[in-house]
């Protein structure tokens, strides 16, 4: 009888201790569960093949180059645009094509509104630009064609400098208005 009582007490104490030890864990679990329910389902990063336009060395035309990039959130268009522009700034990986933007170019922000993608660069794009009509055309249309190719639901791209529309990159092509895709500047394989 005393032995039974002892076992009972030991069990009680054991349960008490177990309660103290595991209760917070249980609580934490519920907390995590709640958090998980509240948050939208976050998908794992995915890799996506995008098209980038670089230029040819002789005729200053644009050629499409495919590149795999990692996207953290497939639903965040602005983030994808930012990633693609950054790849464009990095330049081509082969020497058969040329960069279209100065490597020092800094992207400040990206906006989308209606059918227009706004890409806001810091003045680094202008300060480091080599100048010349050809270089300006190649810079502008590598941005415009790349973005409109990868995001076909948009139809125009507006380049901004320091948050505002700007006159020209280096004194030639007017960039105060959004541009449409230009297929004439793309090199066609014959």
């Amino acid at each position: 009888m005393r032995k039974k009582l002892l076992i009972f007490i030991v069990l009680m104490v054991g349960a008490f201790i177990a309660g103290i030890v595991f209760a917070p864990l249980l609580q934490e679990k519920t907390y995590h569960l709640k958090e998980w329910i509240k948050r939208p389902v976050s998908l794992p990063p995915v890799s996506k093949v995008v098209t980038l336009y670089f230029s040819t060395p002789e005729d200053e035309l644009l050629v499409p180059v495919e590149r795999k990039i990692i996207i953290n959130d497939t639903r965040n268009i602005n983030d994808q645009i930012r990633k693609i522009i950054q790849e464009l700034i990095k330049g081509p990986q082969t020497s058969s094509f040329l960069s279209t933007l100065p490597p020092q170019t800094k992207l400040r922000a990206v906006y989308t509104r209606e059918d227009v993608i706004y890409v806001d660069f810091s003045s680094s794009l202008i300060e480091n630009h080599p100048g010349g009509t050809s270089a300006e055309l190649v810079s502008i249309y590598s941005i415009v064609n790349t973005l409109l190719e990868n995001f076909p639901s948009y139809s125009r791209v507006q380049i901004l400098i320091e948050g505002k529309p700007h006159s020209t990159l280096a004194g030639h092509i007017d960039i105060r208005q959004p541009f449409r895709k230009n297929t004439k500047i793309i090199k066609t394989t014959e």
Partner: protein
Amino acid sequence: MRFAVGVVFFLITLVTQVSQAGELSIDKVKITSEPAHTRIFIPVPEGTGYVAKDIDAPPRLVLNLFPVRINFTCKEIRVEDRFIQKICLLKDSENVVKAAVDLNTSEYIFDISSQSQPSAVIIQIRPPGKDIIPALLGLESIETEENPPSFGPWQKIPKKKVGNYRIVIDPGHGGKDPGAIGPSGTREKDITLAIARKVAELLNQNSEFQVYLTREGDEFIPLDRRTEIANLLGGDLFVSIHTNATWSSRAKGIETFYNSRYPYGEGAKEVAMRENAVFGSGDLPSTVKNIIWDLIQNQYRQESKELARIVQEKIVRASNTSNRGVKSAPFYVLRGANMPAILVEVGFISNPWEERKLKNAKFQELIARGIYQGIVTYINSLDKKKTENP
């Protein structure tokens, strides 16, 4: 006798309330009467565009300014001036302010320009006359009793006779803007000026041509100002001279451009469609002004294209350089030129081989000769058309 009237200033301030952000900004309109012209200075917020229209009866000049707001419906300024009776500012629609300038006479010429810092729209009204250039450039008019000014509304300026052409040559860049710089340090602004001077020299040998340079020396002229100068001079042709550049040191050759909003001819229809929006709708995009500028140059699209074709052909032949052809792109400096206008890229300063050639005075001479021949051939083709159908 000189028009010896002292300069009279009328400073009229429209008393308005302190504007809220994005609201009323036309708070100080200044009217200056000078012997050569009367000037209306309308301070506007940065980025304000305008559309101007002149009405015959009663003589009135109407300016739609946008996007800009006023916090009253209508206010007028009465003026004692030989041209202007009064100026009314009225709210046209949400973002459009109408500035109506009532005039005493229908015999006037007007020019409208915009400037930044401070941002303003400037209307210049002056008597029509033979010697309009000094007045246009803001100099005192040279009116003599022997040579009284002849009057007529601006649209009715007699068409220039065959063989009297004003040619505006625009040497690219200048002053603080060196343009592109070649691998051995050649500056675009020096090459363009040297070639432009040679072109002017060749054209000046022919008495039918009046030749103007947008810059005579190493000075900075904003792009807007270059077209403005050409328009104020009443130019018949505008030729901008540039050297090309790009990342590649291998790119080479000569190309000639004419203006297009959407390069290579796209989008002309869209621009035309939007033209209606300019005059009708109150919901105007802030960049409407650019479209108007395009429309101005668009009138001369065929002529510009033809001029580009001829000039390109002649330069390539004269200089024996590789031909990159005639192209179109939206050029800031060509937009708004109220005449056929082209931009010639005479070679790649970023290509070491072409850079060396461009520095060479003999090569510059060849290029200049090509441009000159192109201009002359184009004008001869016009004269031929005129004599065929006068």
